[in-house]
């Protein structure tokens, strides 16, 4: 497949991710626009950081969900941080699940928090798979240099 075809595939995948609400158009495209010769892998670096962040926060949330009594203020705090990260990369579906989780914290709903956290993790995982494919495509299309 030639480079132009690959680039079209990249553009197509990006549109698809946006249409399916995985990613917010404005936010994600804005991030890609920040890439330049001095920083060609910026978006991938940011996303990698996002996954390091989420891994760390998920561990903390997991622990907090298993503590008795449940510390809703602490859970809300952790999720607030994760929600901030999610919205900064334009991860809409993930962010929406974070909002649900926070509402359960506000309501002191332990069962609700556990269920909401499962959905956060699901959306997070789904996005991760999509982005892995996306960045692979970008690399193949020569849009991103190998670091």
């Amino acid at each position: 497949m030639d480079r132009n075809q690959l680039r079209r595939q990249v553009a197509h995948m990006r549109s698809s991710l946006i249409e399916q609400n995985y990613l917010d158009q404005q936010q994600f495209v804005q991030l890609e626009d920040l890439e330049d010769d001095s920083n060609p892998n910026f978006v991938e670096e940011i996303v990698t950081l996002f996954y390091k962040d989420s891994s760390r926060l998920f561990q903390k949330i997991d622990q907090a969900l298993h503590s008795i009594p449940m510390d809703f203020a602490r859970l809300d705090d952790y999720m607030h941080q994760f929600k901030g990260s999610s919205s900064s990369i334009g991860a809409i579906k993930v962010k929406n699940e974070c909002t649900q989780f926070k509402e359960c914290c506000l309501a002191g709903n332990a069962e609700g928090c556990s269920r909401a956290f499962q959905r956060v993790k699901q959306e997070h995982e789904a996005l991760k798979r999509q982005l892995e494919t996306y960045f692979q495509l970008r690399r193949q299309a020569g849009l991103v240099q190998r670091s």
Partner: protein
Amino acid sequence: MIPLCLMILEKMLRTCLYEVTKCNRAEIALSLLRENKNGYDVVISDVHMPDMDGFKLLEHIGLEMDLPVIMMSADDGKSVVMKGVTHGACDYLIKPVRIEALKNIWQHVVRKKKRGVEGCGAIRKCG
């Protein structure tokens, strides 16, 4: 551990041709500001920080350095925004911050200086 949004903010500001110093701790930011009062023209701070409330930082800066401070938060509730205004923030940005919102922050520097605040920090405008 530098938060993600801080890295993105830094990149955006640099794209707008601002010089940026980022800190993940308010205490560190304060000591940098104290050490070099004329080295900075504007401060951008989150409301929600692990070691200090953003409004507390805003108060400190107002009292000690009188630099323009821009608050930012994912919280767009009226009361929080009002709190920013009453505590003396010169602007309040809702996260996720768009680069367009950052392009013209230099106006806050000019406005402050026009009000007769002493200082000789350089103003760096975006191109």
